[in-house]
């Protein structure tokens, strides 16, 4: 069985080469980071405080709707996107879904001090300030009430695309989401205050692994220290939905690829069997 021995030698060296330039190289090129943390314990958010949605409604009307729209409960945006982007540097998000897509603990910490919750203090030096002011003068109970109110008005279900639009699209375009219509452009040009235009996310599902996306979105500083991208505090569910949208857009043929692969290989196995049988028949005449 010399042929089998030769095959083992060839397969062994091919395997070592593959291991070296793929899995091994990737462990060296992409250092391991800690797993994502969806409790956001590092910031003191709610700290166990229970909020009251009713009280929260009044606080939100008095403090938040001057800049933020909440269309679902009758607070329309006061300016169009272009004007508000020009005034604030970024379009303030509609708060309708905030209670669903952001972790409650994170949301409370963010209201208190946006830059430190987002881990972007390094971008606000020399007098630059985060577009949203800190509400650290509020009582913890009031902040908890706001969070409770936002949770009470949030939709129960959202599509992957809606999550993407609320969580990512204010800064990131994803042009393959609507290649010919152009509706998936970033809502505001944040290049001035971010330092550069955040990348288009159309192919991020191919250029970054799912695991990397989870680690990165959960805490961008872990993989890219000093990046302007804020930690946005998505819940695991919201993050999974946002990544699912990246996959729907960037790898839209995945289902077709995976369902075609099996039958294709099965056909080739049949071909290989018949080819070997034919070869055996022919070679019997000469051996």
């Amino acid at each position, binding site marked *: 069985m*010399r*042929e089998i021995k*030769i*095959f083992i030698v*060839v397969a062994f*060296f*091919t395997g*070592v*080469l*593959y291991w*070296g*330039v*793929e899995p*091994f*190289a990737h462990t*060296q*090129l992409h250092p391991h980071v800690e797993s994502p943390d969806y409790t956001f314990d590092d910031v003191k958010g709610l700290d166990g405080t229970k909020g009251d949605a009713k009280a929260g409604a009044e606080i939100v009307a008095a403090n938040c709707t001057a800049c933020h729209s909440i269309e679902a409960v009758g607070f329309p945006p006061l300016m169009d996107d272009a004007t508000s982007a020009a005034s604030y540097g970024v379009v303030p998000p509609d708060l309708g879904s905030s209670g669903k897509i952001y972790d409650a603990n994170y949301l409370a910490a963010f209201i208190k001090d946006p830059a430190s919750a987002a881990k972007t203090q390094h971008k606000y030096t020399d007098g630059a300030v985060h577009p949203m002011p800190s509400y650290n003068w509020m009582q913890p109970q009031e902040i908890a009430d706001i969070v409770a109110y936002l949770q009470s008005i949030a939709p129960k279900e959202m599509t992957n695309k809606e999550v993407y639009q609320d969580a990512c699209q204010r800064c990131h375009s994803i042009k*393959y989401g609507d*290649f010919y219509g152009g509706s998936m452009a970033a809502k505001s040009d944040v290049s001035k205050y971010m330092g550069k235009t955040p*990348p*288009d996310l*159309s*192919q*991020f599902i*191919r*250029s*970054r*692994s799912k695991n990397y996306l989870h680690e990165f979105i959960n805490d961008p500083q872990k993989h890219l220290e000093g990046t302007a991208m804020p930690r946005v505090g998505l819940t695991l569910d919201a993050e999974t939905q946002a990544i699912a949208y990246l996959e729907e857009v960037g790898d*839209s*043929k995945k289902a*077709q*690829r*995976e369902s*075609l*692969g099996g039958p*294709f*290989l099965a056909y*080739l*196995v049949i*071909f*290989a*069997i*018949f*080819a*070997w049988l*034919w*070869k055996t028949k*022919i*070679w019997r*005449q*000469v*051996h």
Partner: protein
Amino acid sequence: MAEIKESFFSAEGLEKRLNGKKFWKTMMTEYWIPKDINFLWAMGVVLATTFMILIVSGIFLLMYYKPDTALAFDSVNYTIMQDVAYGWLFRHMHGVAASVIFLIIYIHMFTGIYYGSYKKGREMIWISGMLLFVTFSAAGFSGYMLPWGQMSYWAAAVITNLFAGGSLEAYGLVEWIRGGFAVGDATLTRFFMLHVFLLPIVIIKLIVVHFYTLRIPHVNNQSAEDIDYDAEAEKYLAGNKKESKVIPFWPVFLSKDFAVLGLFFIFYFYLVFFNYNFAMDPVNFDPANPMVTPAHIYPEWYFLWSYETLRGPFFDMFGMKAGDIGLMIFGLAQGIFVVFPFLDRDPDILPAHKRPKFFIWFWLLIIDLLVLSIYGKLPPTGANAWVGFYATAAFLLLWASLPFITKSDAKARGAL
């Protein structure tokens, strides 16, 4: 010219005009191949088939690809990958075949080295094969540029810059190759031309030459036995198929090739559907951006060993700059395999296991190329840089010792 009276519209008339039966005999049923072979002898047909896959999938890609820096990335990643029916399949087939064909080329090449199929009349096969390797490398490199991703751009920038020749500072040459001061639209369009026109034509011609050069000295066999083809063919045709040491190309040799192809296809299409990132680097799914250098720049796996000889000497030596020494070794690495038949001083054709010192040399070379390939992808810092340095030194020593080692084997055998 002998006049042909049979009608053009009859089978007999066509046969008279084309001489198809004679042609079929010469090329197929009476083209004699040794019987004492193993599956490694099927790699030629596997390569020809993979090249056909590249051509056919390439034609489909060519219908939608746009060689323009503003359009290239989206034409590949949106139009072909998401919009066109089964465009993704053709791209995956093309990208994976381009990578796998190098694996088969290396197996084919080292089979030739192991069994001594490059000397004593077979030099032309070896040289035409190495020319094919060089043109395939150029085709791989130019094709990698076309999706205009980050790795396309930066690999193009790094590799075209090599033509400056280090301290020679031949920047006029680099600009001439790029069509500008930096890699840009002109570079993309000319590499597109090379990839879809000039290089495929050269490859097809070289394949014809490669087959032709093989015809006269005949295919080598597992024990490198010198076969009297006329006598053995006569035996075969007389019906002594079992005693004859030869088999016809069709159907005997090709039946084995098809069997091997069957297994190869399973392997190849498994990669196409389920494991393609090794051939389609994720970094290249970021659009080219001259303002942002990727954290790590590395070539495709099949260039890594020679790339590492470029980086190996990382400090100045012998009054020369590290970069210049690297460039010289890199240049040597590109050409050294071509002169293999002339570095081997052993007058006999024998498989490596019958040449004790050469046998060790062969496996040391394989191991050294593996080390160079693996470290060629890693950042050249700390211990990695030293591994690269010593592996490059070992590479040079191996080649320098080849004439002596082969001579010594021959002397021990009493052949010299």
